[in-house]
């Protein structure tokens, strides 16, 4: 199949959308409601392109290319249409950027800047929408920042399969609402799908701008799936967990534990020194003392009651290497197969 995009002759496979072909060829078409893992619904119309012989522009994200198409992605007319779409989105947008979690990595900001939308010819008298409870306390929904792309709703439906959210109301009253709040598993997939700051996380009281934080790639230590994570670190403290769509087998998807369960890392209650029970008290001690105490007791018990009187219980939060060594120790040194771990944390 032969098509032309912005004057470039392209040989493409059948069945691909205009957007997919353009992306492969390195031609940039802006999108807002489109997400690779969701079905394209063509609702925001940011991706409009002109096709020769077509009366109206078409949305690139859900229009399959057909042989002989001549497409233009960046004409004056198209740019103006996109500008107008952005103006509509901004009509009642709150002046929140400075206090918005998303400022600096917000798709709406980027598009407005890219398209130089600097004046607003339209006005509307609509009251600000009220805040309401979301389906999980880990997430807050800011109705006035929402651009109605429905990425959250579709992610919950198509990726997570929980079908919690829907758009309620219409026109300027429209908002995303948890219509089946009981089905929510607090996975935060909707949060990560939101291109703007309409869904924000409430777990960390500390926030950091994208240029202040360091994103450290790592593997989730909660379960055996081993999802790829990025710890968002500010001043040596984890303030958020994100994940890269291109990394690992989880492809940008996480569960509630991986996404929100990071507070323990900074908890002041974590044990950092060994404790020995003396009488009724747990007393801080040195590693030397603790280890020789354990060693002498284990030897004593083993000699008196036999190896099988001892069992080892390890933690699933340890690394594979640690756990391997632990079972080796129990099996080879203590001499028993009584070893397990708390896999289902």
């Amino acid at each position, binding site marked *: 199949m032969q098509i032309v995009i912005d004057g470039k002759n392209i040989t493409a496979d059948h069945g691909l959308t205009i957007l997919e072909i353009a992306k492969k060829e390195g031609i940039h078409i802006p999108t807002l409601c489109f997400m690779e893992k969701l079905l394209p619904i063509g609702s925001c119309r940011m991706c409009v392109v002109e096709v020769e012989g077509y009366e109206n522009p078409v949305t690139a994200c859900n229009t399959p290319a057909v042989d002989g198409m001549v497409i233009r992605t960046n004409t004056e007319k198209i740019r103006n249409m996109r500008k107008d779409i952005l103006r509509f989105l901004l009509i009642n947008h709150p002046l929140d950027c400075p206090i918005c979690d998303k400022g600096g990595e917000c798709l709406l900001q980027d598009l407005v800047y890219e398209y130089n939308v600097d004046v607003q010819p339209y006005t509307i008298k609509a009251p600000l929408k009220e805040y309401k409870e979301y389906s999980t306390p880990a997430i807050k929904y800011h109705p006035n920042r929402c651009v109605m792309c429905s990425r959250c709703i579709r992610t919950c439906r198509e990726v997570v399969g929980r079908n919690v959210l829907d758009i309620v109301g219409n026109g300027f009253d429209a908002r995303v609402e948890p219509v089946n709040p009981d089905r929510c598993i607090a996975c935060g997939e909707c949060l990560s799908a939101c291109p703007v700051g309409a869904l924000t996380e409430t777990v960390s009281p500390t926030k950091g701008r994208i*240029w202040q934080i360091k994103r450290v790639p790592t593997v989730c230590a909660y379960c055996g799936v081993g999802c790829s994570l990025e710890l968002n670190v500010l001043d040596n403290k984890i303030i958020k967990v994100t994940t890269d769509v291109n990394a690992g087998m989880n492809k940008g998807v996480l569960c509630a534990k991986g996404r929100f369960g990071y507070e323990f890392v900074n908890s002041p209650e974590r044990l950092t020194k060994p404790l020995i029970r003396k009488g009724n008290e747990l007393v801080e001690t040195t590693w030397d003392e603790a280890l020789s105490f354990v060693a002498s007791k284990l030897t004593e018990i083993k000699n008196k009651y036999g190896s099988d009187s001892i069992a080892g219980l390890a933690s699933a939060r340890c690394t594979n290497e640690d756990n391997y060594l632990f079972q080796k120790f129990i099996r080879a040194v203590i001499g028993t197969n009584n070893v397990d771990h708390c896999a289902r944390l």
Partner: protein
Amino acid sequence: MSEQKKYMTLNMGPQHPATHGVLKVILELEGEVIHRAIPVIGHLHRGVEKLGESKTYIQNIVYTDRLDYTSAMINNLAYCLAVEKLMNIEVPERAKVIRVIMSELSRIAAHLIWLATHALDIGAMTLYFYCFREREKILDMWEMVSGQRLTPSYIRIGGLLADLPEGFMDKLKEFVDTFDAHVDEYDKLLSKNPIWLARTKDIGIISAEDAISWGLTGPALRGSGVKFDYRKAQPYCGYEEYEFDVPVGSKGDNYDRYLVRMEELRQSNRILKQAIKRLPEGPIKAHVPEIVFPDKDLVLKNIEALIHQFKIGCGGFTVPKGEVYASVENAKGELGFYIVSDGSSMPYRFRIKSSCFVNLSALPEIVKGSMIADVVAVIGSIDIVLGEIDR
């Protein structure tokens, strides 16, 4: 006894009140006569040029204030002109005239410091207070427009930080109307003073040929009779439309350079008078939303403006690949910026051409064979600021 033993080495500075900043000059003396003078610079080195490579184009403006900090506004201008040239931005007429006003106020402010300290170095203390009386008024005006007295960063890429506040023009007119009389005052205090004459006439002579071959610019060049001024040679901000003379000396001694700068004070005031008449109404920023900050009152009301403010402020803007050199006539001579852009939001190379650096390099030649006391008079006369030399 070896040849070298004949000379006594004396360190003048870096903590010396008459070296105008932290300059050290190693003097090799034969009695009171200078055999060799070696300027040692670098005490004020901040790495501005290197820093420039890791700051956005907007952030770099504040570093320019701190070059020749006696006349920060011209430095802002030179840098902004370079970036504007690279990006093909034309600023509105009103902004151009205000830029001229600020440039000439800077020149006056800088020359007043020169006069005050030059005279003080040689022992004429009274004048110091007269000069600072007028300089204060200029700093007050800068405070009005920018909130800052020494480091205003008022001139911005694409225009100005903000329009002139209410009451500014009245202050300016009052200043302009009285300033000529003040210059006469300085003139009376110094020009015929026998001590002043003894310390400046026929001291520190630079011939026109030397001045040119050493690459001097500014009053240090014009004092030797070379009529060259960037405002005439390569006009910017519409300087070609103003009437003013470029004063020159004949002999190239300290006194000639003194007369040149005194006349420049008057000529700057002459330009200010024309600028006041010329100042049109209109915008003070070019309309390039992706580069120029929107007006603050819009930012507080309008999400489009807020987003632009956020994006430009946090990430800066990208500048097309290319390189550029632009220069202005500041109070000391040519101040130029050479910028190479690799297409990102920070310069790939950020180079500053400083007239002070070049003019100071001539010091060893000028003072060779003269008396030790003349070093102070010559340093004052070639008028240097270490903030620009060391960078």
